[in-house]
């Protein structure tokens, strides 16, 4: 394929023994030259299958994107989807001058960074540890258990967090056991980040190992053989063979993680925070939510949302570009 088959599925660990992905026969090139009229005549049935999904994307994905113009127009509830009158950059200026906005912006960056710092490398570590387990049953058991939290509703996770950290919860029993005073963790802003990040780790680490374990199986056994003959011990084998082997997967997942950086756990924060923990817990998306639905300031909230989405998009694009330059792996 000369045309880079751009937007293929993201998690693509390279497989040496898989059939070459570019193995589609060459004559296909001829097909590309067909005019739309010919293509439609020949494949109209195929195209017809795409109609309903395309409508879905158009209405529920792209129309809201266009609906972002209400960030530049005054919107009144019940009014037009695209607002009533132009107000230009008024709402943008408004949030740039809004001190709360900068607080939540900082919180977003801090929580996003912490999440990335813990939730990205830990699955790799766990996958490497699992990979060293010889006993098959044990390995399977650990895997099954560690995937489990992934299947829980965020509401249940939040509820569990609340129970564990409540005054009579296990955490406080330990604190008391160590001779300390019970702490109302969920009402203390200084604890919010710890609670958020650790519950995030609890829920995502196990499931995060899956793709790495898949990538690990594709590493050529001969490479280990060769490394051993060269006198590499276990640690050096891991460093020089295993890690480079899963690097494409790591990069791909890192880019994807960076893409969700700005949208840090909106739902979970909404469930876990309260006015007492706003100083550390309130992030852009939750602030936006309150502005929109509690203060009915739709245009202002839309402006914040647009800002957030643009930063998110910029982050993905730059991460992708950087990784393409430096390590040669990219999403597209």
């Amino acid at each position, binding site marked *: 394929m000369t045309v880079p*088959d*751009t937007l*293929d*599925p*993201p998690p693509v*660990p390279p*497989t040496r023994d*898989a059939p070459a992905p570019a193995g589609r026969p060459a004559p*296909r090139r001829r*097909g*590309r030259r067909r005019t739309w009229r010919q*293509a439609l005549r020949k*494949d109209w*049935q195929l*195209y017809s*299958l795409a109609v*309903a999904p*395309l409508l*879905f*994307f158009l*209405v*529920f*994905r792209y*129309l809201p*994107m266009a*609906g972002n113009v*209400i960030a530049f127009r005054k919107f009144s509830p019940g009014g037009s*989807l695209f607002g009533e009158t132009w107000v230009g950059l008024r709402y943008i200026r408004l949030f740039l001058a809004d001190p709360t906005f900068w607080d939540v912006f900082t919180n977003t960056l801090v929580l996003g960074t912490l999440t990335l710092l813990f939730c990205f490398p830990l699955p790799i570590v766990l996958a490497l*540890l699992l990979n*060293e*387990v010889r006993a098959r049953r044990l390995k399977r058991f650990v895997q099954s*258990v*560690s995937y*489990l939290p992934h299947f829980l509703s*965020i*509401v*249940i996770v939040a*509820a569990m967090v609340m*129970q564990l950290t409540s005054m*009579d919860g*296990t955490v406080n*029993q330990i604190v008391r056991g160590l001779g300390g005073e019970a702490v*109302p963790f*969920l*009402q203390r802003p200084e604890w919010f980040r710890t609670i958020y990040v650790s519950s995030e780790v*609890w829920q995502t680490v196990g499931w995060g190992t*899956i793709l790495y*374990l*898949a990538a690990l*199986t*594709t590493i050529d056994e001969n490479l280990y053989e060769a490394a051993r003959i060269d006198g590499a*011990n276990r640690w050096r084998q891991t460093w020089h063979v295993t890690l480079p082997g899963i690097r494409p997967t790591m990069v791909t997942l890192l880019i994807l993680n960076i893409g969700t950086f700005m949208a840090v756990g909106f*739902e979970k924060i909404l469930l876990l925070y309260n006015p007492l923990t706003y100083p550390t817990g309130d992030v852009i*998306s939750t602030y*936006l939510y309150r502005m929109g*639905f509690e203060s009915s300031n739709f245009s202002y*909230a839309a402006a914040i949302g*647009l800002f957030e*989405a643009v930063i998110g998009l910029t982050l993905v*694009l730059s991460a992708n570009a950087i990784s393409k330059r430096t390590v040669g792996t990219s999403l597209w």
Partner: protein
Amino acid sequence: MTVEAAETGETRRVARRPKGIRPTRGYRIFQAVNAVILTGVVIVTLYPFVNIVARSLSDEAYIIAGRVNLVPRGFNLTTYKLVMSDALFWTNYRNTVVYTVVATVISIVLTTCYAYVLSKPRLKGRGALVGIAVFTMFFSGGLIPNYVLITSLGMKNTIWAVVVPNAINVFNLLVMKAFFESLPEELEEAAAVDGLNTYGTLLRIVLPLSKAIIATMVLFYAVSFWNSWFTAFLYLDQQEMFPVTVYLRNLIAGATGAQSAGGVAESDAVQAAATLQAVTIVLTTLPILAVYPFIQRYFVSGVMLGAVKG
């Protein structure tokens, strides 16, 4: 490579250490440490579940005293009876089932159709069709425009607000596309020669061969709809329409509200809510926990299908 092998990351790795070479001392120490770490992971992961079950079966007084950890104290089923006699709980539970089924059906149909179209490399405009879907992974309209849209479409307070707007998950779409691409092209060509049109080929040749991926997708979608709460929370106003996740969220939100109002000294109402919450959590999680051992392997293989075949 078989999915089975990928699932455990086993394959040829077993043979890595030839018999006869004794592991070094350092490596044996590492194995021991590793076992300890992994045991720790298992304990930490399972503890919250055990704790919640213990709480749900305990007497309120023991919970308040902070004495319930692994085993229930003052065993009783009063709260279970209480929750299970709540008509709203069951209505919401039924809603969850209905929403999950309807949403999953819609999602599967749309995702399958689109993934099938995308899997045809000869198709003109295919790149654009892929791009349209993938772009939405990185940029979205955002909460407010979506809300305005759903409201103006008149979908608020209807089941459609819950089951339609998230019908296609692009990640699932790409996994399915990869699966369809891996099917031998000759089969479909043969079907075409035998006079089947595209619809016929899809229904009678491709789908029967795709049971594995469709089952995986059903699981993926069903679990995500079963677990979702925010769309329902945002778009539904009547209690009778809530899914059980929103029931639970209202239960815990009520408690935190009282907590933050009362400050450190927790009120009686909050305390009474402790077992109530635990029971609701257990009842809401139960279906997932019950089917988890059976569906887990399919999930895993589903992710593999997308990941390994690319």
